[in-house]
């Protein structure tokens, strides 16, 4: 099995680490400290790579597997960084029946990503999201704050081209 680490090198700064260690020290003796620390860690780094989870595991004296188990259980935690352009494809019911699944699959293939991952150059990250309240435009995807409606598989190259080069 391949190691489920990101394909981007870890670029945490000493300042981020100091901040994380401060958070750990604040929560260390509390029961259930792991959740608040994970939340803060994700705020600090934007995601939870192995380097960050290892600091948390050692700091709170819990096994790395337990940290990883919790981090993968909750969908709001991410193991991968977000790209410069964050693509979210709505897979809510309305979008899904209008073919959002195919759009999502095409993006996965095109970018070489699975849901939640980021391209090696840090440009694009891809997520599946739930209803964003624009069902009339289904299927919908967003790139950062830009909304694209009635997207078809054939539109994808044009959309991506706007953010490349």
């Amino acid at each position, binding site marked *: 099995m391949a190691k489920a680490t990101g394909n981007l090198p870890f670029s945490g700064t000493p300042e981020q680490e100091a901040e994380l260690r401060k958070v750990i020290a604040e929560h260390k003796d509390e029961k259930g400290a792991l959740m608040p620390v994970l939340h803060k860690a994700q705020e600090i780094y934007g995601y939870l790579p192995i380097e960050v989870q290892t600091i948390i595991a050692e700091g709170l004296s819990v096994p790395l597997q*337990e940290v990883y*188990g919790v981090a993968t259980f909750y969908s709001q935690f991410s193991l991968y960084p977000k790209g410069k352009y964050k693509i979210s494809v709505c897979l809510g019911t309305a979008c899904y029946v209008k073919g959002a699944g195919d759009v999502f699959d095409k993006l996965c293939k095109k970018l070489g990503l699975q849901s939640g991952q980021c391209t090696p150059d840090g440009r694009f990250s891809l997520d599946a999201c739930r209803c964003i309240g624009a069902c009339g435009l289904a299927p919908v995807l967003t790139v950062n704050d830009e909304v694209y409606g009635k997207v078809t598989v054939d539109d994808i190259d044009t959309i991506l081209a706007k953010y490349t080069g």
Partner: protein
Amino acid sequence: MENVTLKINGMSVSVPQNSTVLEAARIAGINIPTLCYLKGYNEIGACRMCLVEIKGARSFAAACVQPVGEGMEVFTNTPALIKSRKNTLELLLSTHDRKCLSCSRSGDCELQRLSREYGVEDEHRFDGEMNHYEPDASAAHMVRDNNKCILCRRCTAVCANMQGVSVIGVTERGFQAHVASPFEMDLADTSCVSCGQCIVACPTGALYEKDATAEVFAAINDPSKHVVVQTAPAVRAAIGEEFGLPIGTNAKGKMVAALRRLGFDKVFDTDFSADLTIMEEANEFIERVKNGGKLPMITSCSPGWVKFCEHYYGDFIENLSTCKSPQQMFGAIVKTYYAEKNNIDPKDIFVVSVMPCTAKKFERGREDQSAAGVPDIDAVLTTRELARMIKKAGLLFTSLPDEDFDLPLGIGSGAGAIFGATGGVMEAALRTAVETLTDTKLEGKALDFVDVRGTKGIKEASYQVGDLNVKVAVVSGLINARKLLEDVRAGKADYHFIEVMACPGGCVNGGGQPIQPASVRNNTDIQALRASVLYDEDLTKLEYRKSHENPVIKELYETYLEKPGSHKAHGILHTSYVNRGLY
């Protein structure tokens, strides 16, 4: 403790008030099926097999976690419950790799047995999407195949709660939930200690030892190889279980007969090299005490413990005895002393160990374990694999005659025999150390160091040896080792000598032993029953009870090794360790 009275299936029963419904039913002579429940380690009511009806309750309750109450009326076998259990099994089967014929657990799979008992007629009833996982065969000792996993969590519970290791756990959620190492690392890259307790905890074929039977058969059939086998003390205490004999049967004679009929050239006993370990280890201990060496000295026989120490307690590596384990000492002596004496090139000798242990498979490949320039040990079989070979060869185990080990390396003392139970190494070492240091002869009851016996996780004792008050501790189960080492590190405990066995109860309860289903494990003291075989051997079956009185050991030192701790003994019988760090 006060009792409460309740009714189970209409029959009145009185049970201790802190019992669960599952335990109460057992007292009433009723078995409630379980899959996830493992007493003391995994009590989470997750699998829903043990559901019962309680009069007045809104829904079914999980018997394994449901406390009893005064006047409670419980039903364990109503048509609704039977239907529910059958449904649960069918749902488990819907994402289970149903390749049962070729499965390592075919015939002793708990899922298979319950499916039969509950009359599952169609294992494809809920066919649908399946998860597919690549089996992880990276580790030296085992394979982890999630396709057979039913997410009962028994393996992750023993890894965390019995061993304090936690290198596997449940990852993701819902349909994607699966058992994995952090970041999907290969098991070989984690700080797994190879104890194999997850394997004996698994109800299905998701976890199994790496099978070495084919290479052993090949060696036996290779006329250019002189194939020597050794069996650890704990193997004789458990292998009978594979052939229907009761737990706690000494099957030594039949095991030896079977090995001979399988075609091994020599059938020897690890009891012999356990004695040799004591000679070296007792000497090392005395030297450390006399010369201000690192104390407490900690035993190094259990390779699961050694690897645990190297990963998690690197600051204790200098405390580890430098003695190789009995398995490795045996191979080292066969390929040096025995090879020279019989004029055989060590390269042509193939040494097989039969061990109650999966970590021995890892230990075989460790650094600094090649006394003759070739590996000390060539293949390690667990007790289960030996049983498989015996079955494959068509040997009717229970009909075999009782035979004796070959000479000379088949002679062991009672001290060597009790190595297989927690406290045994300590007791064996004390017998030799006391006689060596005080020039007195221990006889009869004075040979029994009863304070270090028994299956308690942490045992302490102190003995006056000459003018030194020797403080000792014996621990089994790595979570107990953790507690003890934390105390030693914090200066709260102070010992001269510590014995650590990775598995609770010692080798008799090793990860390579016959697998007993949870229904037996939860209700039987398997550790004590198997250990009694070894204490019985020590007391009644063997001619010598002290390692240093073993005549083969005496001759080995007189004609070859000179004396314990000699330069030659160090070259052949001692080893070194590495600080492995975490992950």
